């Protein structure tokens, strides 16, 4: 069992992380739009 512990832990973490990513994808996508818009605007201003 001890031999497989790292792999099991890794697998659990990946599943859990994936679940969190899926659960919040909308919030992060909206934030990304604001973030990239800001940079586009600033690039337009200063470049």
């Amino acid at each position, binding site marked *: 069992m001890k031999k497989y512990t790292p792999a099991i832990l890794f697998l659990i973490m990946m599943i859990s992380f994936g679940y969190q990513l899926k*659960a919040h994808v909308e919030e992060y996508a909206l*934030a990304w739009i604001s973030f990239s818009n800001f940079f586009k605007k600033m690039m337009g201003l200063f470049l």
Partner: protein
Amino acid sequence: MELLLITSFMGIAQYYFAGTLKFEHLSGRLVCVGVLVSAQIIVTELILGIFGFLYAPLLILVNSLLSLGLIVYSAKQKSLRDLFIEDIKIIQERKKAIWAWENVALMVLGLFVTVWFFFAAYFLPPRGVDDLGYHLPVIYEYILQHKIVLLPIELRFHFAFPFNAELLFLWPAMILHSQQWVDIVQFFMAVLGVGVVYSFARMMDLKSREAFFVALLFFFTPIVLNQIGSNYIDLTYNVFFLTSLYFVLRSCLTKNLTYLYIAAISTGLLLGMKYGAIPLVIILQFFVFPMLARQYRKQLVWYVMIIVALGSFWYVRNWIVLGDPLYPTFLDTLGGSAGNFSAHGPISIGKNMHSFFTKVKVLYSHDVGLGSFAGGFGMVFWGMAFPGWVYIWVNSFKNFTQEGFLRWIFWTQMIFGLAVVVLAPVPMEEFKYISRYSLFVVAIGLIALGKVLELLQFHKIFLKTIKILCIYGAALSVILLSDSAWPVYRLNTAILDRRDGENPSEFRYYRDGVWFLPPMSYSAELLDLLTRGDAKGLSCYMASDYAAFWTTHIYGSKLQNRVWNFEKNPSRDPDAYIYQTLESDQVVYIGRKITLGEIALNPAYQLIAATPYSSFFIRNEFFENKDKIALLLKYYEETFPFNIEVAAKVKEHLEPDIPFVLDNSVGHGFQYFKFKGDLQNKVYWVPPDYVGSVIEREKLRVFYTFGYSFPGFSSHKIYDAMLDGQVIVIYKNQK
């Protein structure tokens, strides 16, 4: 500049002093410096404030002398140069670990977000809900009254809370006499948090590389990033819980008196920050006190005395003044009345237990409060650190030597922290505001993640994947700031204004916020703009519904104004009045009841800014100064160009000497022409519902109205004006 100088001097003095104390690790010593500097700031402000000597020059002088004393004392023990060289050597030994690729990635991201925070603190006003309601007004009153005072608890019971953490915000506000940098204080608390997480990680035998990695990840926790730019004190409070925990566990482990006393200082400060610290400290002491009692018999009295000295002031004050040390009664807090946030009413403990499992599920799957200062532990915590912690905690039962037990105490704090969140007696709709109370669990989870990373060190692919995903999670937390409403971090408008050569009041950027901030922005910006160049500004009265009774903006960006309602014995009537009903019609009056009607119909004052739910009046005398008129005209031109345009068209159709009575936003336009001396008609601009009263008071027989004919008069249309896409008819009414 003086702020930077005195704070750096204090930092160097405490660093030097800490160098003379017995520490096993540099990281622990640097954390100790953070605790001692905070303690020095808080204690000197408290003492000067209690005795009514809270003046900036005196505060600077006292702290300079104290720091000088520390330097003189330390110089007898050790050379500062030697200490510094030793420390640089230690850091250089860790060079490889610090410059590991994953740490460099996080540091680059950290640099980017640090610049963002400094820009936000410089350009944007304080803008968190509780910041405006009580965290900041309290310390601004301390600054203006030069003593620690209790603000009217009939307005907010929060004014009687412990305020040790807010005294840290007082530091830049007092020295600069400005609100500008109060939102950067918690940045340094986040850095202290990184330091304590690193120290803990090393205590848990993590290698420097992993310890540094998880410590940096703490900085990128969404709620940490969101609270840095606010004056919500949960970040400071939780970091101080971690420092207390660290030093008390170190004192148990090492039998080193230094740790014991630093633990006492940290715990004392913590207790003076929030009532919520009491159960956490009691639980912690329950585990460690028997050990401390065995190891430090005689010194334990000092341990307790330091805690009491640093943490008890607010409780004693409340006991003497309000008859209740934990006002508004601790039992009420447990029962829910102080635990809930709005008018939903208390929730019983039984009912709360019923929703226990729903709350656990929601906490994990929704990461409640994400994207605001109220919550959001982030996907690195819930996705990686929390599962890692479960594994580490279960394994911690295997070793129950004294050291093993102390480690178990550390890991188990996660349970107490999460219990505070899910057992807090608040209804489900307010659950999203709670997780901030226990953000220290993130630190524990991240250290567990570090332990798991070490477990995976021989599985490079696993290790790298996890590290890459953690960096990805950190980057997402930063991106999340772009869309944050609580508080807002968007700098677009501020940067555009600077590009256009404008230097508006920072309160203009309330308009980029949400909830009450946009409607409040008009009076907030104008009041500040008119007074910010004055050494002594205006004394402003506020009457508002309870929820929107926020006063931070009234003080002005340079703390030049007074809130008349909070003055103990005001020598004269207010110079300005702000009335607002933004959430309900139930107006709260503090100090004296002065109604909107009294001021709206008082010819000594005039309305200069209004929205459908708020009105801002200033005494006429104020505009005897031509410079003030120039500022007002500039404000109207920049803020209400459309209303000026409408007024310009309307005034072309007016017969001279016939007054105009109106109750809408075109009033800004008419005021513009009136102050410019470019209007031959008298204008009566009043809040909605006061048109009839002013006509009656002035006994008007003939007058113009905007949008409707006045009943009881013969009226005829003189002009069709366009306002917000609608045709508005101008009537001439006469008897």
